[in-house]
């Protein structure tokens, strides 16, 4: 909070490193699942 009436929330950044980079370790089946998940998030799974 500040005098200008704005509400500021500090964000932390997660650093990419080999240990937290699970996406790179996924096999093709998992990648398909992630793709399907993304399709669901954006509601275009019926289009794909």
């Amino acid at each position: 909070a500040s005098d200008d009436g704005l509400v500021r929330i500090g964000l932390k950044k997660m650093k990419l490193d080999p240990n937290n980079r699970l996406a790179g370790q996924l096999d093709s089946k998992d990648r398909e699942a992630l793709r399907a998940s993304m399709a669901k998030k954006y509601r275009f799974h019926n289009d794909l």
Partner: protein
Amino acid sequence: GSEETDIVALKNYMDAQYYGEIGIGTPPQKFTVVFDTGSSNLWVPSAKCYFSVACYFHSKYKSGDSSTYKKNGKSASIQYGTGAISGFFSNDNVQVGHLVVKDQDFIEATKEPGVTFVAAKFDGILGLGFKEISVGDAVPVWYNMVKQGLIQDQVFSFWLNRNIEGEVGGEIVFGGVDPNHYKGKHTYVPVTQKGYWQFDMGDVLIGEKPTGYCAGSCAAIADSGTSLLAGPTTVITMINQAIGAAGVANQECKAVVQQYGQTIIDLLVSGAQPVKICSKIGLCAFDGTHGVSMGIENVADESNGKSSGILHGATCPACEMAVVWMQNQLMDNQTQDRILNYADQLCDRMPNPMGESSVDCKNISSMPPVSFTIGGKVFKLTPDEYILKVGEGSEAQCISGFTALDVPPPRGPLWILGDVFMGRYHTVFDYGKSRVGFAEAA
């Protein structure tokens, strides 16, 4: 009430890299959440989550400890990758900065299957999308902030610091914009489909050259909950080629270029409409707006029993990509031999769906910028902005910030502009005027 409206998907959690702290209940119980403009629900782990390992590594909401808790109990499911996070709705006060949002519906997650969430540094998600995509018709936190008169203007804005280690990761500002975090003026574009922060964008440029694919407009979603930039395979392949990203060879693509490449060039030169070329040569059906696969698995020439071997579902999109690539090269006045060679090379750089593409860290300085046209203005990303470094020093690996995602018309072609883009460009989500604005981040 339908299955579709009761499920919201979280994408690959690794794509969500920025998170902040909120409090739920009275006294406030602290949670770290991803502020996600690509979804609209608030979700945190529940103290009633007993059988999921991930719950033991994160803060959990204890309704019994809150004097402002109100029971709801309606079940909810959040789709994620190979499983689904499930739980039930509850109602309590939510503290965001110094604001207290009263009577906020949120999901208490009681099951977080798999190992994915175990290592996550955040506990949950706070969705900043529109109510239209909210699971269980829950009123999003942002809507309640507005309704309860807690903020000055109906605007929130993101500044994501992509630069220096050890500094603040970024800042989300509710109620306006922080002039310290951008330079110049914002370029605003109207929201075209409420639900997501979706807008129309123009062409994508590699170097200074237009790719042509989005010249007639593409849709784009500004999504703070996704780190990468996702877009049509046709363009991602061109980017892969330009930056030397690893890809996979696509045989249908190579066969189309070999067998039909010259014909495609001839048709383009003769002035045929690019969208009709693949149907003209029999590789797609034409639905009046674009080519569509004909659903032919394999076509055999009955007279000699030989299979053509290429006419199946992937051939039409391969042909359509080849048309775009060749048209792009023709406009660049390349020779026909070079065009065919270029298209063949692109067939070796096809991205894995939603996969990562590695690049050589040593070549970053020689890679071209990639730019997006939004509101008639060009928004450039330099290679050090769109390449992500994983690890340090000689052990460092570099991956492209671009990933492929194909959405056919009418929803597509679609781009997801995640943190890679929002890091370079301070982003304003103007709910009051239903528009999104971008300006150079400071």
